């Protein structure tokens, strides 16, 4: 069962191609991440999938409904937390949730019950009758995520849900994302935070220049890029990174804070070389760590110009 089937989705703005023939599927119940640098086409993709932008080409099926032909039926099954969306600041938290419920055609009794449950879940119940303009940014964002859940969606789009929030709100939102996903809600998460995607997502798609350049589980993506395995070493004296290239064994050496990071496919050969360098140069090794490739390395490698 597929929640989303996108085929050749393309969006052009005055001749500029923001999204270029992307095709992918998201299985029901999956937590799917959409990663990419600014301007990669993530938000445009989400806007096409949620029926806000009409694709220049291509189709998208949402829970079996064509978003172009049956937008209202498809939207009825979605929950959406758009990037930089706001709640109505002159309305109370409860009234914002009631409004969302009414827009989804839910009966008043059900809306009140659902709204109260969500307010409790997101830690906003005590302030339910306060105007949103009195809320902190974290509280507003929690409310915005709650607004995306009023209709018990099968599919939830979260576009940068934790961007710019305090750590408490970030943790709460991440915890709830996991909980909702474990209850069977398919989640599409757009994020700049690679570690967030690494921790939460079953699969990620990395976008750049409007195209999907890699799509797989975070672990598989990491293993594809073994050359990004690295060693971090710190010496008691100042050492130039270039001195540690060791011929063709180390592919890249760069300074990271007070350490030097060495990238190599043969990390096991690098360690004795470092020991030998330490002995010959008189620079004592004070710490040495081997690092497995992480998703950030994969991301940087893939999106590098």
């Amino acid at each position: 069962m597929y929640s989303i089937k996108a085929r050749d989705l393309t969006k052009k703005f005055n001749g500029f191609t923001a999204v270029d023939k992307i095709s992918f599927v998201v299985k029901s119940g999956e937590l799917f991440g959409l990663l990419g640098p600014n301007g990669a086409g993530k938000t445009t993709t989400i806007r096409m999938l949620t029926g806000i932008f009409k694709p220049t080409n291509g189709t998208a099926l949402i829970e079996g409904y064509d978003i172009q032909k049956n937008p209202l039926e498809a939207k009825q099954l979605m929950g959406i937390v758009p990037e930089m969306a706001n709640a109505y600041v002159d309305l109370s938290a409860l009234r914002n949730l009631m409004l969302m419920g009414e827009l989804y055609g839910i009966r008043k009794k059900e809306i009140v019950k659902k709204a109260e449950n969500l307010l409790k879940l997101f830690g906003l119940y005590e302030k339910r009758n306060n105007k949103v303009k009195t809320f902190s940014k974290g509280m507003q964002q929690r409310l915005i995520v709650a607004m995306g859940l009023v209709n018990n969606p099968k599919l939830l789009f979260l576009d940068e849900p934790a961007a710019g929030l305090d750590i408490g709100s970030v943790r709460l939102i991440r915890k709830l994302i996991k909980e909702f996903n474990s209850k069977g809600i398919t989640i599409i998460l757009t994020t700049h935070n690679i570690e967030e995607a690494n921790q939460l997502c079953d699969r990620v798609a990395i976008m750049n220049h409007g195209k999907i350049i890699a799509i797989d589980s975070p672990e598989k993506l990491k293993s594809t890029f073994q050359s990004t395995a690295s060693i971090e070493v710190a010496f008691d004296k100042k050492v130039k990174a270039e001195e540690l290239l060791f011929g063709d064994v180390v592919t890249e050496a760069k300074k990271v804070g007070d350490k030097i990071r060495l990238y190599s496919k043969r990390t096991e050969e690098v360690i004795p070389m470092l020991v030998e360098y330490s002995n010959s140069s008189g620079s004592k090794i004070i710490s040495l760590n081997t690092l497995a490739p992480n998703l950030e390395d994969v991301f940087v490698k893939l999106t590098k110009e």
Partner: protein
Amino acid sequence: MNFIGQLKRSLAVTKKDLFVFYLKGPVLISGILMPSFLFIAFIIGRNLSISFLIPGLLGMALFVTVSSIGPVVAPWETRMKTFERLVSAPIALWAIILGDIVASLMFGLFITFFIFIVSIILLGVEIISLSLVIGTVIAAFCFSSLGLLISAPPTDNPSNIMMLSSMIKFPLLFISGIFVPISSMGKWKFISYISPLTYYIDLARYSVEGTNNFSPGIDLLALLGFSILFFIIAIRWHKKSLAKRF
């Protein structure tokens, strides 16, 4: 998605608009003061009868109030980043626009009703035709649709739309027979026919004074025609500009 379901959602938009934009002290007070001041400014020093003035005041109050807030709702929501959430919900664009129109219509009718009551009780004005009541509701829908049509350009700056709105609204006030009867406009008379306000003023004059240029049926039909036309164009233009708002 059934039609009734969409109408209910449209009502949710109306409620939201009323709470967010209209039911505020300053808005309600300026809704009464603005047309009154405009009107007073134009009648001072002119020897005109109450029965000539009241239809003009009614027309001006309805036109100014109904089209005052409606045009800025879309740019304001675009700026406040609430619009994307609204259009992401399973509500058709026509239902959102209808919700905005009805909120604006209710606000205008409330103010106009206030003037009706004051005119009848304090000034002893008699309403001799009930077609004015139906005409007022249709006219409110018509002027509100015009306001929504004006709000179609995809800006997030309400003052841009306010400027555009003033550029359209003020000339209409002068050509619609509020201050100068259409019969005195000579060869320029035909210009007044393109203004929907002309037909409402004509209907109000008939209902209060008993004088008219067109029959009440023509006035009502013209208002209905303008309403449908403005509503359809508003939907089309908003549909066209929607993607440019984000």
